[in-house]
């Protein structure tokens, strides 16, 4: 035994034992233990395999500075849980990530023998031939990514909004003093901390601060303007101080796993502390090598002494505190200090605790494979010495955790020689500040003073004048000042020296990246993946930058830092989503007829913009194709009815309405008589089609514009922009009325007969209500507006009625149409009918590259207007490149061969695509497959044969006119 449970442990409750399994073996721990501390307490050091090389790994940190992930099999199965923050639970089962059969005996460790084949960027190189896809499954399975369980846990999550004057991230000494300052001043304050109890590292590093922390906690309970979020992490700081905060297991939410807050703070104080970083030496990743701060944390919080013979290796003062604490708990401790003359206070403290110090010496290599057995030390006089030990506690200095300030993009990273790390310099007018260890101030009482002063300054910016809370009187502690970093030059060394444990990145990988020309730190990061693992470089990044600087012969400042990005700590996707899943994220739009459709066998489709519309009405024994054919045939031969309610409707009113329509449409609208409609095509000013549809002039001053279902919002936005930006003086308003009106569309050769049975109080004869005409009146007692348009290639009557009458009107239509064989029609049949008729559809033929001539609609372009939106750009384009893609019809040589929509048309033997199939249906009118598409110079090529290519197959198509039914439109106009 080396690591063991000893007395103490502020976080654990020894009266509550907890049993769990790890890699199928039983373990015990106490309530309050993390998985990492419980395993350490039972001397289980090797608990993970590294990401790439499957090297043995153990616990390195004590929180979000660690990278050991496990899969939790039960309860609540979930992948990739961080061992140092996962609280153990009774009966839980955990498993190491990507190991076989387990972490201890992992066969994947064979990867280490292939390490020369797996340098940085290996997937760009080693597995290129014959094809990366061949290797990808194996590489992915081997990589330390965990596996999502079959029955994955779905955490119960909610979202909440908040706002405050000052948000303080972190409740260490700086955050606590700031919170007291702000709350006593009456400011609405939120204090966010990831611990169960406030204090940060005070409970670990400063035993004499307990009274101060307890006193503050007591004082806070009487301050109603201070809200404290425990077990919560500010994981992102977005623009304008929008903070994302993840609250774990909120006490006020029974059964709630996560609550994700979005908090808007007028001022933010980043008091998030600092992370200790490691040292660089050969095999510095072995189980039993740990940050000195982590060894101290596991001891003070969980009562776990991680070794009996502990070698503390440091280049700064802070590790002396850890060494003294570990020695006091009963370990045999020695210190290897790279500095030849450590401060006398350090040496005295060590001596008092019986700790030997080797000044001017440094660790060269760790001994032991599956766990540390000793260390090779280079002494001050140049001699080597091997020291036996079972724990190497390392301290390479501390990195201020100013991630949130950096995420704001309003702070720059500046190198600080005193602490040998980067600190943030915030813009003077930025609404955020950094204080305490996050700002490079390490002594606890200094942190408190700094935090209180930062709060005072933030409140002053909000117009509140306050005095900063006085800092507590605390004994001097050992902090990471006067750091002597040493970053090795590349050279022949035994073993591997890791700079990033979670990404398995070594100094050799950094050297390779530089050798291959990736000289910017951002490129080094992406090529080697250093800093891209689960800990996001919290402990490793500064070492990466230091090594790159040493290798490139630059200063650390000149190399600079990579960008910090959210999330600061891992966040469950489910927590971000909260309750917003499916239709709660993006609700469906239903017409007033949905209930009828569903009761009558409709299979619903999305018709665009989340509108639900019947795709087809299924009858027993029918598949979708048979149903669509039956419905389409009813329209061609008798009468059908479809729900046209989702069709976009915009009411345009005002004296300048006609001028607006003339500006946005390619055709002439101004002279249209009231009661008449006209088909129009709208383009954007880049000369490409935006939408098409029929607009009716209801009376002198009012027009009703119909837009495609899926384009209705776009058209509305377009009209608003034209009016507000380009023609602000025009007197015209655009009112979306899509949902106000239901639309019951009767179509087919017997549609007029069916309509006559509905008791119209207006004349529906061909002369009184011709194609593109309209009528207003009643069908029995139901008010309607009837529009004569057609999207089917048959005579159609679109019955518009206020939404509340829709279902009654529809029922009456079904009854009246029954003698004629009326069928309700879904969008599959609509698609067949419109393709046969050669009508274009937004999103099929209109793909954002076609103009009005390309679509064969040149006849509707005004000859009179000098300008309309899109005219100029279209003319320039047609003049400079007259050979255009044009709408044509296609008939496959094999009349039953359907072609997937979107299939490219490429000449045989050629490589350049010359068109595509935009729509393809089994025509009921022709009894064969017909298609539409766009083809380069297509109209001139009618009669020729072209070829569509579908998954290696070549399909011959004859180019024809794009109208397969009622070419002279006599049926439509009947």
């Amino acid at each position, binding site marked *: 035994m080396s690591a063991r449970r000893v007395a103490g442990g502020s976080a654990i409750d020894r009266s509550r034992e907890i049993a769990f399994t790890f890699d199928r073996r039983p373990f015990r721990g106490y309530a309050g233990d993390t998985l990492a501390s419980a395993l350490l307490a039972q001397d289980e050091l090797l608990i993970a395999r590294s990401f790439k090389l499957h090297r043995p790994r153990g616990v390195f940190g004590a929180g979000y500075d660690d990278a050991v992930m496990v899969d939790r099999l039960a309860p609540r199965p979930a992948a990739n849980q961080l061992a140092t923050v996962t609280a153990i639970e009774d009966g839980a089962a955990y498993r190491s990530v990507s190991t076989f059969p387990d972490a201890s005996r992992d066969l994947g460790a064979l990867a280490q023998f292939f390490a020369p084949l797996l340098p940085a960027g290996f997937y760009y190189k080693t597995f290129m031939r014959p094809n990366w896809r061949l290797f990808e499954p194996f590489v992915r399975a081997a990589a330390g990514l965990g596996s999502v369980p079959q029955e994955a846990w779905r955490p119960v999550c909610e979202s909440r909004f908040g706002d405050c004057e000052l948000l303080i991230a972190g409740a260490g000494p700086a955050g606590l003093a700031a919170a007291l300052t702000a709350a006593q001043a009456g400011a609405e304050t939120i204090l966010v901390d990831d611990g169960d109890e406030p204090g940060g590292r005070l409970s670990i590093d400063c035993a004499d601060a307990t009274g101060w922390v307890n006193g503050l906690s007591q004082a806070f309970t009487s301050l109603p303007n201070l809200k404290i979020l425990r077990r919560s992490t500010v994981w992102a700081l*977005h*623009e*304008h101080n*929008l903070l994302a905060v993840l609250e774990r297991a909120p006490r006020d939410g029974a059964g709630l796993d996560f609550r994700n807050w*979005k908090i*808007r703070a007028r001022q933010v104080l980043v008091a998030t502390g600092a992370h200790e970083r490691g040292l660089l030496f050969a095999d510095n990743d072995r189980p039993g090598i740990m940050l000195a701060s982590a060894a101290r944390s596991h001891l003070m919080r969980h009562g776990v002494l991680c070794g009996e013979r502990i070698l503390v290796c440091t280049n700064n003062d802070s590790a002396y505190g850890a060494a003294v604490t570990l020695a006091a708990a009963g370990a045999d401790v020695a210190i290897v200090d790279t500095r030849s003359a450590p401060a006398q206070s350090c040496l005295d403290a060590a001596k008092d605790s019986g700790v030997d110090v080797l000044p001017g010496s440094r660790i060269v290599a760790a001994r032991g494979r599956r766990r540390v057995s000793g260390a090779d030390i280079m002494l001050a006089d140049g001699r080597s010495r091997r020291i036996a030990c079972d724990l190497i506690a390392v301290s390479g200095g501390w990195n201020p955790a100013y991630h949130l300030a950096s995420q704001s*993009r*309003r702070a720059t990273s500046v190198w600080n020689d005193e602490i040998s790390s980067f600190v943030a310099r915030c*813009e003077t*007018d*930025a609404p955020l500040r950094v204080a305490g260890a996050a700002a490079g101030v390490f002594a606890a009482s200094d942190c408190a003073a700094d935090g209180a002063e930062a709060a005072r300054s933030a409140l002053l910016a909000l117009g509140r004048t306050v005095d900063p809370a006085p800092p507590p009187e605390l004994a001097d502690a050992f902090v990471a000042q006067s750091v002597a970093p040493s970053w090795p030059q590349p050279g022949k060394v035994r073993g591997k020296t890791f700079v990033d444990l979670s990404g398995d990145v070594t100094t050799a990988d950094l050297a390779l990246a530089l050798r291959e020309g990736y000289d910017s730190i951002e490129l080094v990061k992406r090529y080697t993946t250093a800093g891209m693992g689960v800990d996001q470089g919290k402990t490793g990044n500064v070492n990466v930058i230091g090594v790159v600087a040493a290798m490139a012969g630059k200063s650390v400042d000149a190399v600079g830092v990579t960008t910090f990005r959210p999330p600061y700590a891992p966040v469950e996707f489910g927590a971000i989503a909260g309750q917003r899943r499916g239709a709660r994220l993006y609700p469906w739009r239903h017409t007033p007829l949905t209930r009828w459709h569903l009761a009558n066998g409709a299979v619903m489709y999305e018709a665009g913009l989340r509108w639900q519309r019947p795709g087809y009405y299924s009858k027993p024994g029918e598949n979708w194709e048979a149903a669509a054919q039956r419905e389409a045939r009813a329209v061609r031969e008798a009468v059908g009815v479809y729900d046209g309610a989702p069709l976009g409707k915009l009411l345009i009113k005002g004296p300048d309405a006609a001028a607006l329509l003339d500006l946005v449409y390619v055709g002439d609208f101004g002279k249209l008589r009231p009661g008449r409609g006209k088909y129009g095509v709208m383009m954007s*000013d*880049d000369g490409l089609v935006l939408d098409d549809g029929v607009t009716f002039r209801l009376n002198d001053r009012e027009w009703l514009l119909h837009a495609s279902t899926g384009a209705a919002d776009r058209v509305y*936005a377009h009209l*608003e*922009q034209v009016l*507000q*930006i*380009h023609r*602000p003086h025009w007197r015209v308003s655009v009112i979306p009325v899509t949902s106000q009106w239901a639309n019951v569309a009767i179509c087919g050769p017997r549609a007029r007969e069916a309509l006559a049975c509905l008791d119209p109080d207006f004349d529906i004869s061909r002369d009184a209500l011709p194609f593109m005409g309209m009528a207003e009146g009643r069908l029995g007692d139901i008010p309607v507006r009837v529009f004569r348009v057609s999207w089917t290639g048959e005579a159609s009557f679109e019955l518009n009625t206020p939404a509340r009458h829709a279902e009654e009107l529809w029922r009456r239509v079904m009854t009246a149409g029954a003698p004629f064989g009326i069928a309700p029609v879904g969008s599959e049949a609509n698609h067949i009918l419109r393709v046969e008729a050669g009508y274009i559809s937004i999103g099929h033929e209109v793909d954002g590259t076609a103009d009005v001539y390309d679509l064969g609609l040149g006849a509707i372009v005004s000859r009179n207007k*000098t*300008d309309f939106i899109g*005219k*100029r*750009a279209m003319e*320039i384009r047609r003049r400079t490149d007259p050979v255009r893609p044009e709408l044509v019809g296609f008939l496959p040589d094999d009349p039953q061969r359907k072609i997937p929509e979107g299939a490219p048309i490429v000449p045989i033997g050629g490589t350049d695509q010359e068109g595509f199939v935009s729509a393809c249906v089994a025509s009921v009118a022709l009894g064969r497959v017909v298609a539409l598409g766009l083809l380069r110079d297509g109209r001139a090529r009618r009669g020729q044969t072209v070829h569509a290519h579908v998954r290696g197959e070549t399909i011959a198509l004859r180019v024809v006119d794009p109208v397969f039914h009622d070419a002279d439109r006599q049926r439509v106009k009947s």
Partner: protein
Amino acid sequence: MLLIPCPDCGVRPENEFQCLGEAVTSRPEPATLDDAQWAGYIHERANRRGQHVERWWHFACCGMIFALSRDTLTHAVSANAQDAWR
């Protein structure tokens, strides 16, 4: 998510708005420009680093389209760009 000051409604969160991009001048008379100038009006945008005058549409609320000046580095916004684009 930005906070956008709507001249009608006051400061509101960005998801009530749609950004319409850089506030170029109002649509010129086509006849007054040659082909290259017209292409410039349609396609060329300054994409500035720093102060950037852009249009926002308060579609989910009052429906007003207005211009504001936003610093693309700091996101600092000021609503006093009303006259810059009409």
